[in-house]
């Protein structure tokens, strides 16, 4: 859990695979990398078995680039498609039982604070919509009410992708899925509103067809969770298998869904705004200077 864990042990360098050597020498550790440098440095995410063209994969890839300190980050996941990739990265990954992830992350984040004091160690939960809004719902909400200081990211593909197409609380009303053949009867859950009611300091929605925006919301969410409180990102990450989206149309679908029900929204508490401005130099939350009074014609 520091830059030491991405160094070679003495004498072992020449035995390590090329991908590992590239990561140690040209990975993002100890540097600030950005989305605009993609394709020019070794990413921490390695090969994994998620489907070709999966938007969730792209989102996970972008998220890992956006982590402010990847060498001091631990990801927590659970059953579902995302863990297949999240676990294949040079970032320690903890796998909770299905639905346990926010409970596990609560203990982990408290333990890290006891062990490392003020030195920030970032805990980031990434779980599916089923894992977050259905099976893990109770633990997710309670972690928010307790203001646990870590980030929760919902990978919302609006279905149980990993188990072949059951409806989740986040599926839209009327959607016909393999294991919801008559169409879902209830509305999509409003987890954003619940996050605000439960006291999250930062709540945002995002779609991966805007990589820089993904980068920006993840950075803010992780930084705010260091000191202020719980943060929540809800990302639309389509399942091209269960929704039969041709893989070369995944970004077209993302744009359509963004315009329909996934417009960018961002809620930042006043305390979080002040913290980002004072601690990390964010200018976007500075109070705007009052507009100068309009000159009145004829008066000097």
């Amino acid at each position, binding site marked *: 859990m520091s830059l030491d864990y991405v160094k070679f042990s003495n004498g072992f360098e020449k035995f390590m695979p090329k991908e590992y050597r590239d990561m140690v020498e040209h990975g993002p550790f100890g540097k600030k990398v950005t989305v605009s440098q993609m394709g020019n440095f070794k990413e921490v995410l390695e*090969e994994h078995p998620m489907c070709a*063209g999966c938007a969730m994969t792209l989102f996970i890839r972008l998220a890992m680039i956006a982590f402010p300190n990847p060498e001091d980050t631990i990801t927590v996941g659970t059953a579902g498609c995302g863990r297949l990739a999240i676990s294949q990265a040079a970032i320690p990954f903890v796998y909770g039982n299905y639905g346990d992830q926010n409970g596990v992350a609560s203990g982990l984040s408290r333990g890290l604070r006891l062990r490392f004091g003020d030195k920030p160690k970032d805990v980031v939960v990434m779980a599916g919509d089923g894992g977050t809004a259905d099976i893990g719902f109770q633990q997710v909400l309670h972690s928010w009410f307790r203001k646990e200081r870590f980030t929760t990211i919902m990978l919302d593909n609006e279905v149980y992708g990993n188990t072949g197409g059951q409806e989740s609380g986040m599926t839209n009303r009327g959607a016909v899925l393999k294991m919801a053949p008559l169409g879902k009867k209830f509305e999509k859950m409003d987890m954003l509103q619940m996050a605000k009611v439960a006291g999250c300091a930062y709540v945002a929605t995002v779609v991966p067809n805007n990589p820089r925006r993904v980068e920006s919301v993840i950075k803010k969410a992780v930084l705010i969770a260091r000191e202020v409180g719980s943060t929540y990102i809800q990302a639309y990450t389509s399942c091209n298998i269960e929704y039969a989206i041709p893989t070369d149309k*995944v970004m077209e679908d993302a744009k359509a869904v963004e315009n329909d029900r996934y417009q960018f929204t961002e809620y930042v508490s006043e305390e979080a705004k002040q913290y980002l401005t004072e601690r990390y130099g964010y200018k976007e939350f500075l109070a705007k200077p009052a507009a100068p009074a309009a000159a009145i014609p004829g008066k000097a």
Partner: protein
Amino acid sequence: MYLVADISVEICAAKSCKLCTQYCPEANTIQYSDELGKDKGFKYGSAYVAVDRCKGCAQCVWVCDNMAKNYAIKMIMIDQLPKAALTENITYGEKSTTAVLASPAAG
């Protein structure tokens, strides 16, 4: 047999927008090299694909055609690729990568 993405250096290097790299779902797959195309007089380098990592989804084709409007990427059967990059032939530098493009069949 399966399809992989192939980027035309001549067409890409004329624009070099680096958009496709940001939309490929797979990590370390569409790489960028400041060197590619220099021998043909292009200044700003080109994207290329590490074909051993490509899953053939063609999202990059959509991005280059519809967002960059540059039509530099085509899907090609792996055994029909004239030349391609493999992870083992990619070298990382300070700000960019270099790749030896070779016939994948030869290896």
